[in-house]
């Protein structure tokens, strides 16, 4: 349409105002994308969880342990096809700020239960044969610039002293949602030193991971496992991996809810910014619209002008905001990467960002457009400048 040229001329008319509006929109859409991505990150663990795995922890709290000896009884439960265990190590690397998850795991069984961690066979073989070997995720290795064969020292916080390791494996995730930021050391390396230095702390694990063949029996099997240890010193709590992960989200649920509300408010703010610009624009151009109508332009043309301009500004702002989200995400990832193991901007977030800005573009133009169309020509012409 020939009116398009007028749209672009109108848009660049108050260049600074247009640019500021676009910038405001871009920052808001960027914030929207980052907030949504953070919310997604909270749920990433739950999304990546397998329905074939149950997690057994101490019924009182995650911070209490279970005797390793429980494994014999759990393994005998009908329907259990695999069993392993993991224990939170909690060491620091150089600086306490360098937080990342470290698990001492049973080297013989653990990785069999997690087919989503892809490890080259020779690396796995070395892990099985060397007591101080560790396998780390690709993202974690990149974060600290580690490569195979690097010696690493962690300072224990729960288990005091210096702990020497060698990087022997780097795993990658089979899925986009797979957590690539973990550290797996051998449980026997930890346990043997405990037996020598602090015997009461030996033979304790944080959780058992139970592989089951039939996810539909998860609830019943969980109850069976827990019933085995009723009235013992350490009662158990067995749940699916998903609900185990969601219990972490639940701990932060008010934060997540807050973030969701903020992300909606951000859209509201864009609407105000653009609506304000469009209202100013419409007010300034009353006499121009009246002139165009005098010349024979019809409401459809005027609507095209106003909606065209609003959608153009909103569209550019939206695309720019999405573009900005990637470097900002990268900055956040490199600075607080350990906190959110999986921090990816999902396609749906990008689409929502664009759709939201276009919707804002439409809504912001409605009132100015109606006003421009409804103002009688003679009234519009009476307004000079």
């Amino acid at each position, binding site marked *: 349409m*020939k*009116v398009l040229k*007028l749209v672009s*001329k*109108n848009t660049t*008319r108050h260049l600074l105002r247009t640019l500021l509006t676009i910038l405001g929109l871009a920052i808001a859409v960027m914030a929207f994308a980052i907030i949504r991505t953070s919310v997604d990150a909270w749920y990433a663990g739950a999304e990546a969880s397998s329905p074939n795995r149950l997690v057994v922890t101490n019924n009182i709290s995650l911070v209490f342990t279970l005797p390793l000896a429980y494994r014999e009884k759990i393994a005998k439960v009908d329907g259990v096809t695999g069993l392993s265990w993991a224990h939170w190590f909690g060491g620091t690397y150089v600086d306490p700020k360098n937080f990342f998850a470290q698990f001492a795991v049973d080297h013989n069984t653990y990785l069999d239960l997690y087919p989503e961690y892809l490890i080259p066979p020779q690396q796995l073989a070395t892990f099985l044969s060397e007591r101080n070997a560790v396998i780390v995720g690709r993202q974690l290795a990149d974060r600290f610039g580690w490569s195979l064969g690097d010696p690493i020292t962690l300072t224990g916080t729960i288990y005091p002293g210096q702990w020497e390791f060698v990087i022997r494996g780097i795993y990658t995730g089979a899925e986009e949602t797979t957590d690539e930021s973990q550290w797996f050391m051998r449980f026997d390396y930890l346990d043997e030193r405990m037996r020598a230095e602090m015997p009461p702390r030996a033979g304790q694990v944080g959780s058992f991971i139970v592989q089951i063949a039939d996810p539909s029996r998860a609830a019943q099997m969980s109850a069976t496992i827990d019933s085995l240890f009723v009235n013992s010193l350490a009662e158990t709590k067995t749940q699916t991996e998903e609900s185990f992960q969601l219990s972490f989200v639940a701990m932060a649920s008010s934060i997540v809810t807050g973030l969701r509300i903020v992300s909606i408010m951000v859209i509201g703010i864009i609407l105000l910014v653009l609506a304000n610009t469009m209202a100013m624009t419409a007010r300034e151009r009353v*006499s*121009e619209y009246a*002139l*165009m*109508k*005098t*010349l*024979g*332009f*019809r409401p459809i043309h005027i609507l095209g002008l106003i909606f065209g301009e609003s959608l153009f500004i909103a569209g550019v702002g939206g695309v720019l905001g999405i573009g900005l989200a990637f470097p900002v995400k990268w900055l956040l990832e490199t600075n607080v990467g350990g906190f959110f193991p999986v921090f990816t901007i999902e396609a749906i977030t990008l689409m929502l960002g664009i759709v939201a800005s276009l919707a804002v573009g439409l809504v912001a133009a409605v009132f100015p457009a109606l006003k421009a169309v409804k103002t*009688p*020509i*003679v009234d519009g*012409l009476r307004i*000079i*400048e």
Partner: protein
Amino acid sequence: MSRPFVQLQNVNKSYWRDSLEIPVLNDVNLDLPEGEFVALMGPSGSGKTTLLNLIAGIDRPSSGNVIVRGQNVSRLSEGDLARWRSDNIGFVFQFYNLMPVLTAYENVELPLLLTKLSRSERRRQVETALSIVGLADRMKHYPNQLSGGQEQRVAIARAVVTDPVLILADEPTGDLDKVSAQEVMDLLSRLNHEFNKTIIMVTHDPRAAEKAHTQRHLDKGVLNSHESPQAG
């Protein structure tokens, strides 16, 4: 010249402010032949602009008929009226009303965007219109790069580019200095003589009114039946 070109029959117009009726035009009757050049004069607030707007089809009478070339303008729907205006009317305003974001060329081209003319046909017509007003060398200038007189001449080019039968000018020299006003008046005279355009022009300026064939006076919404030598 059997039928009048512009005919107003018992035209009344009132504006309403809240529930208060403000009568503006009172039983106005007018017959203009084709090729006429009329100066419409009268004190401020007497209803000159209102009358012009009714003839231009950008406002409707409260009662009575506005008939242009046999077409009862007051009976047309909004959409038909818009098309009718773009086909028949050229309007010139006191403050030019050019689009500030468009060049002189683009301003003159604006009404042609509603026609089916090709780009090159539009170009030819715009160039012709701009050369008639003597601004062929200012096509790429924006309104703020032109003097008031030049702006008004661009506006006149815009009014004639569609080759309308009727040109309506509301105080076209009202905002101009003497020299520019003279140029604009010469131009309107030429459009009337050379191109046989029918022109109705509102003016307060007796010198401008002299250029017209006839002068009509409006006072408090009443159109004097005969031309008067006096100027408002």
